[in-house]
């Protein structure tokens, strides 16, 4: 692991990609944390396996989405790191 100092340009390009990924996941986070739950009363009229859908989304659906987002971030960021040769293992 050498001190691979990026040029200013590479650093900017790296950070732009990283920030892009962050913003996309942040948007997904906002959707599953807040946006869809605004319609919980309406969604509740749909029932699946006994679950009112609005209740299900807050009790399980969003949680699954959160786990997937963390996995997605880990994988996608690792890909960016490798593209720029700055991975640390």
């Amino acid at each position, binding site marked *: 692991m050498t001190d691979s100092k990026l040029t200013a340009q590479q650093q900017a390009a790296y950070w732009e990609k990283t920030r892009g990924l962050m913003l996309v996941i942040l948007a997904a986070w906002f959707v599953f944390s807040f946006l869809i739950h605004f319609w919980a009363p309406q969604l509740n009229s749909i029932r699946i396996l006994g679950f009112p859908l609005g209740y299900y989304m807050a009790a399980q659906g*969003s*949680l699954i989405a959160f786990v997937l987002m963390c996995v997605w971030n880990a994988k996608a960021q690792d890909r960016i790191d490798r593209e720029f040769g700055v991975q640390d293992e």
Partner: protein
Amino acid sequence: MAAMQGGFLANLGRVYAIYTGAFVGFTIFIGILELFGVPNRILGYLFIFLTLGVYALIGWLARTAEVNEYYVAGRVVPAFYNGMATGADWMSAASFIGMAGSLYFGGYGGLAFVLGWTGGYVLVSILMAPYLRKFGQFTVPDFFSARYGGNLARGLAVIVLITASFTYVVAQIVGVGIITARFLDIGFQVACFVGLLGILLCSMLGGMKAVTWTQVAQYIILIIAYLIPVVVLSAKVTGIPIPQIMYGQALEKIEAFEKTFGVAQPYASAFTDARGNYSPTAMWNFFALILCLMVGTASLPHILMRYFTTPSVKQARDSVAWSLFFIFLLYFTAPAYAAFAKLEVYQNVIGQPIAKLPAWVASWGSIGLVGACDTAQAAINFALCKGVTGNGDGILQLSEFRLHTDAVVLATPEIAGLPYVISGLVAAGGLAAALSTADGLLLAIANALSHDIYYKMIDPQADTKRRLIISRVLLALVAVVAAYVAGTLGADILFLVSWAFSIAAAGLFAGLVLGIWWKRAGDAAGVWGIIVGFGLCMFFLITTEFYGPWVKASMSWLGDINIVKIRGRDVAYIWGINNISVGIFGIPAAFIAMLVAGWVSKPASAEMQDFIDSIRVPAGSVRNAEAAH
């Protein structure tokens, strides 16, 4: 010792697999003892003392005299195990004991906790964990000091850290007290101190290293203990042992019971008031609480410092995903736990003759967690029955049954008539949850005092030995003070914990995020962010809680303020927002203060910007970290 350490790390999988097998075997053994008629009390003792003994043993085996091991577990914890340790660190008495209880009573409203305590990890993953790991120091205040110009920012961060963590740890010790009091049959105050011993045994000698490997062990116990009763209940009620899918049926049955009992607010209905009508206030409170809990997750130092312990930046990111997965296993089960518990109460308790109520009503009633309030005299036996007037018909109606939030998880196995071994298992799990979080919190507090205040601010020449001794003494002192406060105050676990989240969120989040993502932010921005965010949050928290009428009288220019009688006080709700979500005022205030201070003061120096560039990239060294001090 190094060879032993290497052997242990290479065999982690085998070590913890054997440990898990041994715990399952032990549980089965207790089950057999129960069949042979060994009294419940003995079974409870066995569960509690045996698990405490195991934690103490791990703590002793992992004792250390090295600073790096004491503060960050030597940075050798693989992502998967750090995920488990974070899970235990994270899931406290509030998650294990409090959450299903709050879902039991709050229905949909309680899901704010489920959402709020999971979604925050997305923020940890994308906004801070990898960068804090790259930064690579010992504590969260270290980051504030390096980023915002030294000891002023460090000191402020320490104040926030201690306020939030102390509030949080008091709640954990209350949880330990409740469990130990019930299962060892001793007084609540004594129980708080017994629990304290368990906490100190595992963290005193080995610091973060011992706490890490104990927390992995505690995670295994707590997740088994949480899943087993729900799986059994699901099999009993629906015939299929997959509670997370089957509790839809329980929800339907609950709805049917609600119609016969005449309950106005359906269990699964979203954003409704007590009469079952749509309520925007309920909705805004739901979202405010979610925001505070999520942002608080990404600000609590005892969690963030777990990501200082992984071997690499990549593993820090992977570890966040593992953490959330392990946490998810409990959180997506909690609503099932609550639903099956409610169904059991509706089916087997409500409508029963008082004379025929099972024994658990009396045993949980005697410590004030259950009340059967049919007659006026009931208040003599049941503390919870004060102010409830039953109709005295000898039958327990829904309105006469009282259950404390914190008793739902612990008492459900007995309510459902499951063998006592399961109650003991749940108690061991609750204890593991409360102890593991208390360990992490006490370590965060003690490290802030010994590393940040003593070593960095008072005596930078102190040698390693002296630093570690001071750290241990402080750890014990803080623990005793926390146990004393818990034992004398006792309080609702969930609301104390929610406060801790709001405090951390308002005080630290803006500084952490902008410190990494906004290079221009200079020293003034960091300092003002904490002062304004934390200050405003504490001001609203204290005034609304303790001086509600004054808030209503003098701050009506803010808008709607109403007074709610809760926790024996007149608490002011500004804009109808419950004051457990006071972070909602502090978080934006901190961001605004930082942006304003950042723009009017001079931008961060070129060296500082170079430092930030270097922590944004996983590979390479951290540049100018010393110049930044």
